[in-house]
């Protein structure tokens, strides 16, 4: 006894990309471009120690000043961008690569597979994220790639949960039943019916997850469990700058603001994507 579906079809024509999406993409693309080109565009070598140029505030030669070793903050910032971005992206990719199939399986097959995966997720999520990361990194010598894996590991249950709930919702739709009524195998249904509808919300979730990965990874670096000196990502830069915060605040502030900018940019992209991808599939004329 549902109310009748409106007979008028959805709004025609492509809607313009939301403002947020454009702004976010500009920010993120710029940062990525800068990071990729860093070795070529950095004005000064990022790892040359020079006692003479220590603690210079931002000036014409060193746009963001120098740190306690006399190194140019801007150049270090650019090189650090590569590490932070790589870590965020790597961790998220890892989490998605494992979490999405698990979530899909749990949501589609249900039964004991679902129970098992969800209980495992519960157990992993019983420990706060950063502590789980600490636990994993405690038993092995630190290295940035290990940090990325640890962060990815921490977020696997979250991604799996999201993938599961998306799959659950889709598996209940009649077009999946229609596929079963065609004796389609599980593989076809998962990959050709469910997944094409699942990837928009998953993409949104993954993009937002990158921000958390960057923040968590930087926190671990800050604690000394990420990048190792002399190379440093933004987290480690801030850690190293801590003791000089009263003398030379710019050393810490620069990577801090850069990280905020990056995270805001990625959030804008994620929100913009959500705006764009979801309503298109569910548009109806207003009920009268």
């Amino acid at each position, binding site marked *: 006894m549902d109310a009748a579906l409106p007979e008028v079809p959805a709004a025609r024509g492509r809607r313009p990309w939301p403002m947020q999406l454009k702004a976010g993409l500009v920010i993120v693309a710029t940062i990525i471009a800068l990071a990729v080109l860093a070795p070529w565009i950095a004005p000064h070598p990022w790892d040359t120690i020079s006692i003479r140029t220590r603690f210079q505030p931002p000036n014409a030669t060193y746009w963001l000043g120098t740190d306690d070793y006399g190194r140019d903050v801007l150049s270090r910032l650019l090189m650090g961008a590569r590490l932070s971005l790589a870590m965020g992206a790597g961790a998220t990719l890892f989490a998605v690569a494992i979490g999405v199939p698990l979530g899909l399986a749990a949501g589609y097959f249900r039964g004991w597979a679902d129970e098992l995966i969800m209980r495992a997720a519960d157990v992993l999520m019983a420990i706060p994220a950063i502590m789980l990361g600490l636990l994993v990194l405690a038993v092995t010598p630190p290295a940035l790639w290990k940090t990325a894996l640890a962060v990815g590991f921490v977020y696997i249950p979250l991604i799996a949960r999201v993938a599961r709930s998306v799959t659950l919702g889709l598996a209940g739709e009649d077009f999946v039943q229609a596929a079963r009524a065609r004796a389609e195998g599980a593989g076809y249904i998962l990959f050709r019916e469910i997944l094409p509808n699942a990837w928009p919300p998953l993409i949104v979730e993954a993009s937002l997850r990158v921000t958390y990965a960057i923040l968590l990874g930087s926190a671990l670096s800050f604690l000394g469990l990420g990048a190792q000196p002399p190379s440093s990502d933004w987290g480690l830069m801030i850690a190293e700058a801590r003791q000089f915060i009263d003398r030379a605040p710019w050393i810490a502030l620069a990577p*801090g603001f850069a990280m*905020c900018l990056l995270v805001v940019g990625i959030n804008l992209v994620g929100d913009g994507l959500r705006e764009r991808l979801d309503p298109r599939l569910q548009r109806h004329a207003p009920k009268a």
Partner: protein
Amino acid sequence: MTAFVIRRLVLVGVVLVAVSMLVFAITSILPGSVAHLILGPFAPPEQVKALELKLGLGDPLWLQYWHWVSRIASGDFGRSLLMDRPVYPLIAEAFARSLTLTVASFLLIAVIGVGLGVVAALRHNGPLDHAVSIGTYLGIAIPEFFWAIVVILVFAATLGWLPASGYEPISAGFGVWLRHLIAPTLTLVFAHLAHVSRLTRSSMIEVLRSPYVTAAHAKGLPERVVVLRHALRNALLPTITVLALDIGRLMGGIVVIETVFAYPGLGRLLVFSVQSRDIPTLQAAILVVAGVYALANLVADLLYAWLNPRIRYGRSVA
């Protein structure tokens, strides 16, 4: 309702046991012998062997686990490898201090965050709402450690109002104790306010759009009544969920905050034990944290169930 409580308790127990297995597994199974880690890569093999024997690492894994878990259950948390002292009192002290910090922060975050979220939702699309939205957008982008640096920079280095680090017990004077508590608390609050107010705002907006709120308007009830009696009551439930989620993040937050402010709580203890490979302390600390987190979630679940008539009163009458 009783059945619900018992079910939940059983679940918590099961999860904690599983967590203990997980913790044990991670610290035992990952590559790199624990003894090597403690003694360094250049230690002579006999020393390594001796340490391994001492730590009981020669036994099969399940036996090691069993020994460890039964000791923990009887209150023996082992000895710290770093400080060669029993772990239990170490953790107990640190826990008490972290608890103060966490509870203080949580209360502030709950009141301010939820308040901001609710008010922003009520003035949806108004200037206050936009301000709050932008504020939260920026707020979630700033990592905790950066907040800490900023707080230290502003309040300690520049204004000199608060000490930059350290801790004094209450015995040294209430005022002194409080002063050392303020900076870390403030940082935690700043760092987490955004999340809570954002989620509260969106769940409140959803409640305000629900059919029963429209129906309340249709009855011609004054706005105040609609909001207080109809909307807020139902917005309480998702708020509990939001706050429960935040507890976990808050507990994670103390790790960084206590390290930066040299506040001798459980978070800082954890970091030290990681840095120095003090495995027994690490294991015990994580277990304690998981236990507290599970307990907090349990309380939240029970509160939720109690406030939700559907769960509290069960199935149909007519």
